[in-house]
Every structure is written in structure tokens, then in C-alpha cells.
């Protein structure tokens, strides 16, 4: 077990080191192969560890790395069944994304840098998934933040990509303030900071302190998972290469926030307001993301807002203390969203870097039938068409919220339900416009065998997107829910009244999905020649960016300008310049005194000697 865990972490790290050192020397194919092999090794190790994982968690420590004042941070891992499922999901999705990347980056000159960051990202993500020590976890937390920054701004010749990278970095850093605060409070309360210690000692905390610590971690999770109010970085993060969007912004990093909340579930049990806030914000974000996705034309931005929205459902489940439900939705979302993102990557390359769905249309479907089938699978799962994976997992999260004893969760449920309808509408809007419409000026199509080859790694994802729901179907289908049984004894099982509510919720969900389909067909069927609406409030993300610019950035810029003009230039620079010009005048006078005239120098020497002698002799001066 120890070896498997160590190998799982070390494979991608070694891969990243190899790419950094020799990636560009060994050539494109070998570089891509090495990157994929590193992740494949990690996936194999994850499977081995998964097979050997019992109900009782495994603790592993690889030694201490920071020690002062009686506090020490360990390289310690907590491998329980949640981590087992998470690591298998992460490494599996990452492996397929690496295979896809080999095709996607076939013409990019910086492939070694790309694969280096990608491997490093997988390493840090696995640190998050496995770490027990909260300081070690923070290392992974910041590491994925860095890799995300570097990959969003991967094409750094274009400044707007770099700006998008910085935006993501800064926004998640703001969230991390919450992590640091909560970490500090944890250390102050327990003298150590580990998930195990926090879970065991949560009941000794006062309710107020538990809530404060919980809110700190929740704030960090909101930043990482792009939930309101820290959601605005994710749509801009689409500036990066598309496989990166699939890996970071769909399958793994944005779900790290939810995963943190799952791992902290024992603490949240003692801090009910934190769970309620998470659920409410999750519901609100689900609605917000679905609304904004309706107003986008760029296929990747639609998917980005959709990610924001779907992660909202995970917060809803995690906030309702249903760890299994959140993990289930995390998995299905990882499958269908990375599938959709990678389909979008092929669509964009097939249309010569055209992102606008209103310029794609039926020619794309005819030329790429495989892509069309793949995209259909992903879209059906995302929209929640019955018996696909997204249908079961989303219904589960909504049932959690509906049956929670706290009535405030009903509000979250209502927002989530409305969002489910909107989800179906925007998914089928995208689907009909991008694959069925006959646009007036279609983007020229590009037919390369490499593009068709890139579809290959997507088929397993498509299968999972459609079929993975049966890993954890609701009770009324009378199929044994594998995930619930696997996590029995690790997480709190679903309460009986929630099980009963599932039939109602799932029926409602199916109804909404078909209603959304009908609405989208009504407005966007090919016969209507759908045309893009002018950019509006929805396109701009309901003005969240503008609000931040106006209310936060502009006052800050004014403060900075004041500090620059008034304080720095006038006061500090003035003082420094005045001192400098005074000194310069003085030295000019001294310089003139010593201007090469030997007589003057001699006179000065005599005067000085006379003065010293006088001081020695009489104690003058």
C-alpha cells in the first residue's frame, strides 16, 4: 500500500522533472509518450491502492518537512475510500486527457513545457487528494493554482491569455486567505494541522470556532471551485489550451474545493451554518452559471459557465452533508465535462480556431459523425436526460437539498431545480446550433486524420458519461448502488426520507430535461435559422466582472494612484530628491575647493592639521 501510494505521487512528479530537463531534447512523440506513461503509472498505482483499500483509512507518513516551536508539518497521507475513488477518477481522466493532448499539441512548439506543467498538475492534484497534513495539502492546493496559472497563460505571446492567467491566480489567492486563516486557527487550537486530528478533535471545539474554521476552508473552496462570489476567473480561464480546460477546469482542479469540503465533513458536522452557506451558495451558483451559459456564443465559455453551474450542485450536496452524493456528481461531471471539453477542442480545431457555435452547424456533424456521437453522449449527461450519469447524480444532489431538515435548504433546492431546467435549455441550444443549424457564413472546415485520431481517447469517457450513473442509481430502480455500498461506514448514508424523495426528484428532473429540450428546439431548431442574440447582460456574466472592476478594482486603483502620485512622488520622492540635490550642491562646493589647485589642497591640509592640533592641544571645538 505504501509503495503504491508513493508511486502514485512520484510518477507524475518524475514525469514533470523529465519533461523539464529532457522533454524538448527527446522530440515530440517521445515527450508525449513519456508524459502519458507517467500518468499511466500513476493510474496503475491508484488501481492497486484502490484494490487494497479497506473501510479503515490508511495513514502513511513520509517524514517531517517543517518543524518549529513544537509544531511540525508532515508529508503524511490519509488514504480512505473517498480518496481511493477520487485518485482513480483523477488519474483515469488525466490519462485520457494526456492521450488526447498528444494529438492536440501536434503542431505546438512548446510541447515539453506543456507536458511538464500537465504532469506537475497531476502530481499536485494527487497531493490534494491524498494529503492528511493540512500544510502538505496546502502545498498541493497552491501547486495546482500555479499550474493552472501557467497553463491558462500557456500561449503567453498574446497578452490577454497572460491577463486571464493572472486573474485566475489572484482570485484563487484571495480564496486562499481563508485557507491560511483556517489553518492558523487549527494549529492554534490543536498544535498540529491534519485532517485526522481535525476530524477527531472537532467535537472539542467551541461551535463558534468550528464555524470560523469551517468558513475559512469554505472560502478557500469557493475560490478554487469558482463559486459565487469568486467565480469570475473560470470563464476567462478558457484562454488556455482546450485539454487544459478539460483537465483543470472540468475534471480536477475546480472540484478540489468540493473535495476539501468532503474531507472536512466531520468538522462541518459541528458547524451547521457552514454547510447551509455552502449549499445556498452552491444553489445560487448553479443558477447563475446556467443563466450566463445561455448568453454565450463561444463554445468553451458555454462549457465554462456550465462547469461553474455543475460544481454548484456538488456544493449543494456537500453542504447537505451527503459526501457520497457530492463525490458521485464529481465523478460523473469529470467524465461528461472533460468529454465535452475535448469534443469542443476538436470542433474548434476542425473549424480553424473558430469558437463561435453560430458558425459551426450541420456541415460539422456530417464531416465528423464520430464527434457528433461523442458530443451527444456528453450533452445528454450534462442536460440530465434520464438514465445518463448526470441524471442520477444531479437528482441525488437535489434530493439531498429537498429533504434536509433545515428549511433554508428548500431555497437552494428551488434554485438548483430552476438551474436544471436552464441547463437543459443551454445544452440543447449549443447542441442544435453547433451541429444542426445551417449558418449563413459557416467556418471553413478542416479535415485532418489527426483530428479523427483525437476522438479515440474520448470513447471510454462517452461510455462512462452515459453509463456511469448505474454505479449509484437511486433506490427505486432496485439496482444495487455500488458507490453507496463501497462508501458504507466511511460517509453518512443517505437518510431514508431522502431515499423516498428520490423518485419525486428524479421524475421532476426528467421532466425538466425534456422541457428544456423542447424549449431549445422551439427557439433553435434549424428551420428557424437561429441567429446569435446581441451581447447582453448574460454574455457579460451578469455584470459580475464589471461590478468587481467598479467596486473593488477602481477604488483600489484610485488608492494606488494616490499612493503613487501624492505619497510616493510628492512626499517620498520629493524628500529623496531634495536630499540628493542638497548633497549634490555640497559636494559641488567641496569639489570646487579641491579643483586640482595644489595650493588650495595644501592650504586645506594645513588648516585641517592646525585644527586637529588645536583640538589635541586645547580641547577646542
Amino acid at each position, binding site marked *: 500500500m505504501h509503495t503504491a501510494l508513493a508511486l502514485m505521487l512520484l510518477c507524475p512528479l518524475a514525469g514533470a522533472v523529465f519533461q523539464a530537463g529532457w522533454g524538448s531534447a527527446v522530440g515530440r512523440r517521445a515527450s508525449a509518450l513519456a508524459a502519458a506513461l507517467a500518468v499511466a503509472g500513476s493510474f496503475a498505482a491508484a488501481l492497486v491502492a484502490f484494490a487494497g483499500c479497506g473501510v479503515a483509512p490508511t495513514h502513511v507518513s513520509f517524514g517531517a518537512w517543517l518543524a518549529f516551536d513544537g509544531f511540525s508539518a508532515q508529508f503524511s497521507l490519509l488514504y480512505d475510500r473517498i480518496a481511493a475513488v477520487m485518485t482513480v477518477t483523477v488519474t483515469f481522466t488525466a490519462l485520457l486527457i494526456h492521450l488526447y493532448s498528444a494529438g492536440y499539441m501536434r503542431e505546438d512548439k512548446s510541447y515539453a513545457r506543456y507536458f511538464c506543467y500537465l504532469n506537475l498538475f497531476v502530481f499536485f492534484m494527487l497531493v490534494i487528494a491524498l494529503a492528511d497534513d493540512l500544510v502538505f495539502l496546502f502545498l498541493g492546493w497552491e501547486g495546482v493554482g500555479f499550474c493552472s496559472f501557467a497553463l491558462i497563460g500557456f500561449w503567453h505571446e498574446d497578452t490577454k491569455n497572460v491577463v486571464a492567467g493572472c486573474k485566475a491566480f489572484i482570485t484563487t489567492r484571495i480564496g486562499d486567505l481563508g485557507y491560511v486563516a483556517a489553518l492558523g486557527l487549527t494549529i492554534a487550537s490543536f498544535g498540529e494541522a491534519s485532517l485526522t486530528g481535525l476530524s477527531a478533535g472537532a467535537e472539542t471545539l467551541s461551535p463558534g470556532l468550528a464555524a470560523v474554521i469551517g468558513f475559512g476552508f469554505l472560502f478557500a473552496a469557493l475560490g478554487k471551485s469558482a463559486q459565487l462570489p469568486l467565480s469570475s476567473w473560470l470563464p476567462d480561464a478558457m484562454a488556455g489550451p482546450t485539454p487544459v480546460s478539460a483537465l483543470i477546469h472540468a475534471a480536477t482542479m475546480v472540484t478540489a474545493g468540493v473535495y476539501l469540503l468532503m474531507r472536512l465533513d466531520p468538522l462541518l458536522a459541528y458547524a451547521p451554518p457552514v454547510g447551509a452557506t455552502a449549499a445556498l451558495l452552491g444553489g445560487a451558483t448553479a443558477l447563475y452559471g446556467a443563466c450566463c451559459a445561455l448568453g454565450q456564443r463561444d463554445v468553451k465559455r458555454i462549457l465554462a459557465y456550465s462547469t461553474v453551474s455543475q460544481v454548484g450542485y456538488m456544493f449543494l450536496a456537500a453542504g447537505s452533508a451527503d459526501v457520497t452524493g457530492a463525490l458521485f456528481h464529481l465523478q460523473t461531471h469529470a467524465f461528461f465535462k472533460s468529454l465535452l471539453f475535448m469534443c469542443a477542442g476538436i470542433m474548434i480545431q476542425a473549424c480553424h480556431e473558430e469558437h463561435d457555435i453560430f458558425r459551426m452547424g450541420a456541415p460539422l456533424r456530417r464531416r465528423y459523425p464520430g464527434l457528433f456521437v461523442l458530443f451527444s453522449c456528453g450533452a445528454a449527461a450534462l442536460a440530465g436526460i434520464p438514465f445518463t450519469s448526470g441524471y442520477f447524480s444531479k437528482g441525488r444532489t437535489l434530493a439531498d437539498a429537498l429533504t434536509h431538515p433545515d428549511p433554508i435548504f428548500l431555497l437552494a433546492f428551488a434554485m438548483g431545480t430552476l438551474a436544471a431546467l436552464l441547463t437543459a435549455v443551454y445544452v440543447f441550444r449549443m447542441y442544435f446550433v453547433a451541429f444542426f443549424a445551417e449558418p449563413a457564413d459557416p467556418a471553413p472546415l478542416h479535415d485532418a486524420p489527426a483530428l479523427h485520431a483525437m476522438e479515440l481517447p474520448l470513447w471510454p469517457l462517452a461510455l462512462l458519461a452515459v453509463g456511469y450513473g448505474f454505479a449509484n442509481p437511486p433506490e427505486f430502480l432496485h439496482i444495487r448502488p455500488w458507490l453507496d455500498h463501497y462508501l458504507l461506514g466511511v460517509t453518512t448514508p443517505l437518510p431514508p426520507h431522502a431515499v423516498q424523495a428520490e423518485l419525486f426528484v428524479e421524475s421532476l428532473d426528467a421532466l425538466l430535461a425534456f422541457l428544456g429540450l423542447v424549449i431549445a428546439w422551439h427557439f433553435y431548431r434549424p428551420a428557424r435559422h437561429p441567429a446569435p442574440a446581441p451581447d447582453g447582460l448574460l454574455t457579460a456574466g451578469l455584470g459580475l466582472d464589471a461590478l468587481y472592476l467598479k467596486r473593488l478594482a477602481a477604488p483600489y486603483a484610485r488608492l494606488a494612484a494616490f499612493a503613487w502620485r501624492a505619497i510616493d512622488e510628492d512626499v517620498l520622492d520629493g524628500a529623496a530628491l531634495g536630499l540628493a540635490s542638497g548633497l549634490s550642491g555640497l559636494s559641488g562646493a567641496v*569639489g570646487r575647493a*579641491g*579643483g*586640482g*589647485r*595644489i*595650493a588650495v589642497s*595644501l*592650504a586645506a591640509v*594645513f588648516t585641517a592639521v592646525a585644527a586637529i592640533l588645536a583640538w589635541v592641544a586645547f580641547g577646542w571645538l
Partner: protein
Amino acid sequence: MNVPLSHVLAVASLLFVIGGVCAVARRSVLMILVGVEFMLTAASLAFVGGALAHGNLDGQAAAILIMGLAAAEAALGLALLVHAKRGGATADIDGYDRLGGQ
């Protein structure tokens, strides 16, 4: 001793100041060297006077050292001056201003 030490020191000081003023005020290198010789002589006078007043010979030894120093100084200074004159330079001290940094 007929002459009191204070008188000897007063003469030596006077001689030193005359030498100093000569060294500072004159522009000819030769006259500056003469001024320096005056100052060295004033110092020897003070040493000899002190030696007589205190009855030991250290001051007289110092006077002999100063004589050697003065001879060396005069010889070096004159040699440099002659060398500079041959190279076309003046004897005017203000001509030697390369260290002025212009």
C-alpha cells in the same frame, strides 16, 4: 642654557608658519619646495631645542633624521621638476591640475 625653551619654540613656530605660507601662497614649484624645507627646518629646531631643554639626545637624533629626509625630499622634488621641465611642462604649480577631474 641661555635661551629658554619657549623662545626656541616660538622661533620654530614662526619659521614653520613662514614655510607653510610660502608653500601655499607661491606658485612656483621651486618656491614650494623651499617652503617645505623651511617647515622641516622649523621641526628640527623644535626637536633640538627640546633635546637641550630635557637633557637627552633623542631630539638631536630626530634632527639628523629630518636632515636626511629633507635632503631626500629636495633631491626627489628637484629631479621631478627637472624631468617635467624637459618634458615641456612649466614650473607653475597650477599647471599640474590633471587630478582636478575636468
